[in-house]
């Protein structure tokens, strides 16, 4: 599923930006919810797994409940933005970059996700829902997320991600350079792309901007 104005832009200046924990401080919000609802306190620095059930030690039932709570529109709207995300992306946009926000959220969150981006002044050309982690049933009716096989043909000159698995996919299957934002859940492993320079670890958005002041495809 794709929302936002459908303006085709040259792939040479098209940037992929993940949503949760790249634009919004999702894990910190989740940590608060888990603490309140399930009385499990896990400091942000100890969230060593991308999978929430593993990081927080949740049962399948608790995970389902957490997902319901997290996808509540008010909850999604309340999430804080990641520092310097808006200013970096605005700077990229002003130089002609086409910013495509690519999220693994359910497509049903499209309206609230767009509202959040607008509320926090994050310019974007399109918002793409991709079933990055095989979470959505194939035939769920209505609007649906793109499967990874369909997504593979998209072209980007740079991707900003926090998921090590998605970073691997982008590098190995799509040959897209990745700025991997440092997060506790990606600190425990080294990606093959780090050696080839296709994956660059970045502390934060300021670091990303220093390394990629004007993303563009190499010709």
């Amino acid at each position: 599923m794709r929302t936002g104005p459908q303006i085709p832009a040259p792939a040479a200046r098209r940037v992929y930006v993940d949503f949760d924990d790249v634009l919004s401080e999702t894990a910190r919000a989740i940590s608060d919810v888990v603490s309140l609802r399930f009385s499990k306190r896990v400091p942000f620095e100890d969230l060593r797994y991308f999978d929430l059930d593993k990081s927080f030690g949740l049962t399948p039932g608790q995970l389902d409940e957490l997902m319901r709570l997290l996808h509540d529109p008010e909850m999604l709207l309340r999430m804080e933005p990641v520092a310097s995300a808006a200013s970096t992306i605005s700077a990229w946009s002003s130089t002609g970059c086409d910013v495509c926000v690519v999220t693994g959220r359910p497509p049903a969150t499209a309206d609230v996700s767009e509202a959040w981006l607008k509320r926090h002044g994050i310019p974007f050309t399109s918002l793409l829902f991709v079933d990055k982690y095989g979470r959505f049933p194939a035939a769920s009716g209505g609007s649906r997320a793109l499967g990874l096989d369909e997504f593979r043909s998209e072209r980007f000159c740079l991707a900003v991600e926090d998921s090590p698995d998605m970073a691997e996919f982008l590098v190995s299957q799509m040959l897209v350079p990745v700025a991997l934002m440092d997060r506790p859940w990606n600190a425990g492993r080294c990606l093959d792309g780090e050696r080839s320079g296709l994956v660059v670890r970045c502390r934060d958005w300021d670091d990303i901007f220093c390394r990629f002041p004007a993303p563009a495809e190499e010709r």
Partner: protein
Amino acid sequence: MSENIVNITAESWRREVIDSTVPVLVDFWAQWCGPCLALAPVVHQLADDLAGKLKVAKVNVDENQQLAGEFGIRSIPTLLLFKGGVVQSQMIGAMSKADLRRKLDPYL
């Protein structure tokens, strides 16, 4: 390195892993990988603790790129547990000794 750990190459792979009579934990690693070095003491301790019940083997992915490619190793450390020559479990990333032991126990 623990004396209970063997370094594996493509030449010794069949003998040490496929034909092993005990389960084999294979640690794919590299010298430049910080998390691999952090995991090493955990793997070494388990090799000593489980000597006789589990064989622990290490594959340097830089020196054995064909082996790493064969098993689709794209991030390290990756641990593969073999039993009867077949992969039973895959674990990616650094982890505590307790976590690793919990994942291995069902196969021992």
